[in-house]
């Protein structure tokens, strides 16, 4: 395979989330600025080396402080833009109507739990974890909320609706990452971390683990399927029925 097609294969993945375009713009802006600065620095460095020897009357202000102020201003602008984006996605929680899904990382799989009709996640107890018996999360049957909880090994989401992910880990630190959703958040045992996003395009996307978690780290992944709301509802209803049975 030629180098051109290899390069072509290495491009930003499709952007399929609501907050993604702004992130991509910021990313591309930063990349162009960096590329320009890199080129500029090299042109000046090499130009200065190529030019004939000269002992110029150099003033520190001209050569050092002014460019420094300009660079500082540039970095400040980047910082402010980035902070605003960050604040927009992370400072606030999801809206109350967001779809609740719990994500649990386990060596080496992702599990997704939907709260079911009661809208409440049941209690999990690590003593009850038994993947072989169909209870990988350790759902407590004594808790009435857990009876209707749907546990899935793929993340099914309706397009266009905000999702509130509650990210947990059962054992070690995992990294929940969906490149197409421009999403990344570590799953830390002992904590539940919430992130929220809105998928905007239907399709099947990769969910990766991005924090080294053991020997199966490289194959710890799952599929994210973004479907139409109708498709989602019928899928959830079917799963719901299977659980109730």
């Amino acid at each position, binding site marked *: 395979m030629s180098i051109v097609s290899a390069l072509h294969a290495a491009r930003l993945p499709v952007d399929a989330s609501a907050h993604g375009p702004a992130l991509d713009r910021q990313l591309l802006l930063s990349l162009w600025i960096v590329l320009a600065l890199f080129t500029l620095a090299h042109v000046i460095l090499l130009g200065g080396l190529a030019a004939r020897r000269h002992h110029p009357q150099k003033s520190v202000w001209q050569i050092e402080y002014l460019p420094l102020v300009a660079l500082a201003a540039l970095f400040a602008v980047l910082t402010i833009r980035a902070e605003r984006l960050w604040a927009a996605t992370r400072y606030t929680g999801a809206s109350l109507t967001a779809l609740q899904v719990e994500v649990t990382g386990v060596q080496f799989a992702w599990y997704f739990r939907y709260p079911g009709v009661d809208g409440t*996640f049941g*209690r999990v107890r690590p003593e009850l974890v038994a993947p072989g018996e169909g209870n990988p999360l350790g759902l407590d049957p004594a808790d009435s909320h857990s009876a209707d909880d749907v546990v899935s090994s793929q993340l099914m989401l309706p397009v266009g609706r905000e999702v509130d992910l509650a990210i947990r880990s059962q054992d070690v630190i995992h990294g929940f990452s969906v490149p197409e959703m421009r999403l990344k958040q570590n799953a830390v045992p*002992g*904590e539940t971390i919430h992130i929220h996003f809105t998928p905007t395009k239907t399709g099947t996307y990769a969910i990766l683990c991005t924090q080294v978690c053991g020997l199966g780290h490289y194959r710890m992944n799952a599929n994210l399927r973004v479907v139409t709301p109708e498709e989602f509802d019928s899928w959830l209803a079917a799963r719901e029925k299977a659980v109730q049975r």
Partner: protein
Amino acid sequence: MPAIITPHKTDRDRKRHVEDHDNGAGRRPPTDKRTGGGGDNDGWSDGQSRRGPHERLNRYRMGIFFALASDLMFFVAIVSTFFVNQSAGHIDVYNHYVNDWFPTVIPPILWLNTAVLLISSVTMEIARRTMFHENDVMDEWLGLGKPITRRALPWLSATIVLGLLFLAGQWVAWKQLAMQGVFFRSSQSSHFFYLITGVHAFHLFLGIGALLAAFVGLYVSRQLETRQIIVDCAGWYWHAMGLLWIFLFTLLVFFQ
């Protein structure tokens, strides 16, 4: 910045009074406070002579201070962990805030131990100052016996005894806690109680080693400066551990 092609004239033409033994060597009485070194034009680097009399002492003292600064960061890290874990409550599935920190009750003997350690710091300071008593230093320099060692030894021995007493006291405290069923692994706060007192005790253990070395050194070493250095450095280490204990003890008593 002005050009520095030409150093100040005084820098270059500083008079050295050779007849006064002012060659930066240790020929003058070892009571000189001038330390030399550090780029301050004392002309010590001619390869033969030593620097000012307290140069070595100051070098070792500075080494100890940096080591203690590093050690301080060690304890800062542990104490930060203490505060983080102490306030690490969580909200359980029923939306209750849960904080399971159960403070470890401090055995009262620790108050006594603290007093012992404070007194040991006083005796240590007396021993340390004795090492620099000018009349005695002059006597030794003139070859009139070893008055410094004679005077410092009792205080140093007292410090060692008090230090051992403190360690024994800590041991008793651990035993008392163990009798109440509080062990290292019992609870989050007991982890920290044992860890903090244990790590501190280990430091004091090393400190007693240093004091014993100073004790032996006072007998063995002929050079006054070497004796001063070992007692001085052991002393600063001991003081630092005493001070540290005050902080750790306050932490354990009032901030659990």
